[in-house]
């Protein structure tokens, strides 16, 4: 299949902006109610704003649903973006909903201003009882004059909007274009030609858009290990993982772009190293290792000599230069002046190591499994990764990252397709079961949430007992993501 001239749609964060406004209004009302009596002008003003914002969305969207899924908040189908300007409002909503066991708030058209004050007051109440907090909240809500605001119980991962064909197609297109751009750019660098910066920008912007709207689909593309040459796919994969981690930290769109740009260019210096050494399948000599270790410096210099300074931000240069430096500065290149690798460099270092270790390369016939890499990053401080960022990365990928092949306790074979959005269930991803307990491949893989409990037994229906090498069973993991 090939892409057509179908336009890529960009811009228009209307629902996003409305969602942010709604969260801000909810938070402001809660704050006002916490401090002042209902009659107070501040409370009244906050209620006016909340009522106006909610009614406007309800009218335009034919209703409002605010849904909490793990760390994420969805307004109708749009996942609201957490950033530094709004994390307090996110935090208020997620803690209030979690406290009462609420998974979603639904607001019907025609909701009146008078319904908001009792509803927000109920959200603010501490829940002190034992047992089902949600039931107690429901009872209190029924007893209140609130009629057009309803709540649903928390459902965990089941509530997560599923990957769909449309999203997958968009992710495929973005991925394919990005790999092509990476190929062009890296080849141009090798040949000493001018780089088409505009295309690079568009590619990175598209990846950022995909991560913000369609994260699982684009992350799924990173398992296409055999899709193209390693160097190019690796650059794109590192870009994707970095942006995903950056998003977890609440970086803005522009910040994610700069992070992604640096990530895409992180190995650009290898284009100035002898390809015979880069692709050498056997052990490298000391001299060759020394040459390889020059690639961050070569990358820095390449970015200077290939671009006008206006085209490549300094942050990207630092990412290229520092991504092997390690937090203890014992990596390379060595420093003669004081330095602390930037946060962006430390993010890319993790993304780079993760993708490199899980990929098959000329000198790595047997890639590590994703879970194995995470454990190494976590447990081996000599690797020099930022421990807090590793933790954040595992929060993003889950203990079993996307693309992991797992043997379940049912002896079904399953591919991890999505981390569990509930950060408390990092080791219970969403999987596609590809072979039944007898080892028979399923014509139509079954999607299963490993955090699902069998009501009959009270135990989890399925649990991963082992991760394994897909090649051992002739499985091309990428096939389950395209």
């Amino acid at each position, binding site marked *: 299949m090939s892409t057509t001239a179908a336009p890529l749609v960009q811009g*228009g964060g209307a629902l996003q902006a409305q969602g942010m406004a709604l969260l801000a209004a909810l938070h402001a009302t809660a704050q006002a109610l916490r401090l002042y009596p209902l009659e107070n002008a501040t409370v009244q003003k906050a209620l006016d704003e909340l009522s106006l914002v909610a009614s406007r969305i309800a009218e335009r969207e034919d209703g409002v649903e605010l849904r909490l899924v793990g760390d994420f908040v969805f307004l109708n189908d749009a996942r609201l973006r957490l950033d530094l300007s709004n994390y307090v409002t996110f935090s208020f909503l997620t803690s209030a909903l979690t406290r009462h066991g609420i998974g979603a708030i639904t607001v019907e058209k025609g909701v009146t201003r008078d319904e908001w004050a009792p509803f927000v007051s109920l959200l603010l109440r501490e829940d002190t009882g034992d047992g089902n907090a949600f039931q107690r909240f429901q009872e209190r809500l029924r007893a209140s004059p609130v009629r057009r605001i309803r709540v649903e119980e928390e459902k965990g991962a089941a509530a997560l909007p599923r990957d769909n064909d449309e999203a997958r197609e968009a992710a495929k297109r973005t991925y394919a274009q990005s790999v092509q751009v990476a190929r062009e750019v890296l080849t141009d660098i090798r040949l000493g030609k001018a780089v088409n910066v505009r295309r690079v920008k568009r590619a990175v912007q598209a990846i950022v858009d995909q991560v913000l709207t369609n994260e699982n689909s684009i992350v799924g593309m990173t398992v296409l290990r055999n899709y193209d040459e390693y160097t190019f796919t690796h650059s794109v994969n590192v870009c994707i993982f970095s942006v995903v981690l950056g998003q977890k930290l609440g970086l803005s769109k522009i910040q994610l772009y700069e992070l992604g740009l640096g990530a895409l260019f992180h190995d650009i210096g290898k284009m100035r190293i002898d390809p015979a050494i880069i692709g050498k399948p056997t052990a490298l000599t000391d001299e060759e290792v020394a040459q390889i270790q020059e690639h961050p410096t070569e990358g820095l210099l390449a970015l200077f000599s290939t671009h006008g300074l*206006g085209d490549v931000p300094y942050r990207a240069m630092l990412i290229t230069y520092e991504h092997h430096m390690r937090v203890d500065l014992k990596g390379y290149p060595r420093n003669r002046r004081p330095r602390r690798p930037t946060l962006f460099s430390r993010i890319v270092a993790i993304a780079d190591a993760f993708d490199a270790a899980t990929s098959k390369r000329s000198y790595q016939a047997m890639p590590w499994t994703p879970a194995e890499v995470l454990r190494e990053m976590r447990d081996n401080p000599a690797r020099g990764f930022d421990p807090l960022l590793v933790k954040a990365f595992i929060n993003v990928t889950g203990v079993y990252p996307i693309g992991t092949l797992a043997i379940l306790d049912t002896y079904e074979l399953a591919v991890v397709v999505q981390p569990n959005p509930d950060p408390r269930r990092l080791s219970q991803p969403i999987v596609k079961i590809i072979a039944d307990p007898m080892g028979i491949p399923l014509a139509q893989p079954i999607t299963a949430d490993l955090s699902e409990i069998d009501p009959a037994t009270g135990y989890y229906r399925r649990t991963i007992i082992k991760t394994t090498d897909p090649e051992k069973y002739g499985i091309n993991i990428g096939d389950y993501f395209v």
Partner: protein
Amino acid sequence: MPVDGIRDLTFGAQASHPGGDPFPAEIADVLGTLAKAVRAFQLYQANNPVYQRFVSAAVTAFSRLWERTPSLHLTVEEHAFCWGEERFPMGEGRESLAYQFYKDGIRYVTFLPGFEAEVEKFLAVVQRARQLEPLGGDDLVSLLWEEDFVSFQYGYVDVLAQQLALPEPGGVPIRAVDRRELELEVGAASGGFDGAAGAASTDALTTFTRDDFAETLFFLDEAELHQLQQEADREWHRDVRSDVLAALFDRLEDGSPARQDEILGILRQVLPTFLSRGDLRSAALVLRELDTVLAADVLGPAQREQVERLFTELSQPAVVSQLIGVLEQGTGAPDAEELGLFLAHLRPEALPVLIAGAERIPQAAVRERLEAATDRLAEQHPDGLRALLASGDPVVAAGAARSAGRLRLLAAAPDLERLIGHSETHVRKAAVDALVALRSSAAVAGLERALEDDDRDVRIAAAKGLAALRYQPSRARFEQVLTGRWLREADLTEKIVFFESYGTLGGAESVRLLDGILNGRGFLRRRAPAELRACAALGLGRVNTPAARAALERAATDPDAVVRSAVSRALRREEQAS
């Protein structure tokens, strides 16, 4: 957003509209006002009423439109926007709004309610896009992306990405897996972890249980997330250029000659870039580090020569004058400290331009930095400064004189004296000021000469300067002036300065002359003019001796009010001084 998403927002091609025929006219109106606003943005400042009127018209037009439709979806042709079958030509030229969208690949645009609040942002993006370099890194699509519009959507095609092969499943079905094979793998792995000797097999490594990753260990709590977010925020606002430069200098110090050449080439590139952007801190950092590297003696001879050449080139008048030009225009408004850091690394070649700049720059803080840089270089190269005192450029000559004064460069006294004969008043004045600043008898001849200067200010400065020096031999020269004819024709201020200076300089020796003017009588027992007597009184006020006081007291009841007033002022001053 997925490609098909655009259909959800489409109102136009397929949608009916309640208003019937008038609707295209309204769209034409909206597009017309928008195009005019784009033009107005190009021509006028944001506070210009004409611009504001056009923006207001566009806002009104969109607001009216939203009463008829929830959105406006248009396809983009090379020179027109289309709404269904209706075509709205936007002109044929490159300035056409439709063309601007079309050439960058945009094929659909959708305006949504709320766009009114984003009109000006939209106009700014369109304008920025028009000013882009044809082969630069940006185009309209990337600029629109950065602005993250809420009520404006666009769909674009990437021509180069067409016919691109997308990843597809391999089509090879997986083989059936023998259950026993799986059991064996799980069992073997379990055995490994149970402590089987030498169990460091790949299987063992790839076996995980939930205990390996207890979730509680990985729950990123709010405080940790907040910590990372704060760090991200700090880092975003930090200038990372110094880190990049530090990297370059690290590698310059330990690199091969070829790499050193490359890095020096980069530094030659970045310096003018920093300067053109007014980033003097980074430019100063480069120069400081280059100085450090030179001192560390880690460069090869050829590379060392390159660095020396760079410093020299950077200090060339043609280069420094560009910086001064920017400073004079006030467009860069550099931080004075940063400017100082940068200037500290210039070589003597920069001296004349720095001097001239310091003379012309109106901002005091910037001027101070330029003067400091001038003085630093002049101190290191006094002969160079003395040569500049003879400069044909009066601005340079005056500035050099001031620098010589600040530095108290005694060797420059003869050069400064020569400047007393300069044709330009401000040069003579600067020379006098400098001579005064020398605080040396070497300056006296020049200052005495300046007492007869054509310019009042120069004369006044010279008189004050000589008074400050208290150089007694100059008393005779003052007496000539005080009793001469031209001082009587001078204005009151100048007279006062001369008399006070004489009193200060002459001390007790000046009483006789001053008393004579104040209290004495001349031909036909006529007194000197009241104004002159008053000035003599003020001169006596500077002497501070009993004789001077007695002379003043004798005139305390003078019938002339002007004289009386001056006498009491002088007595008051004397009292304060004693």
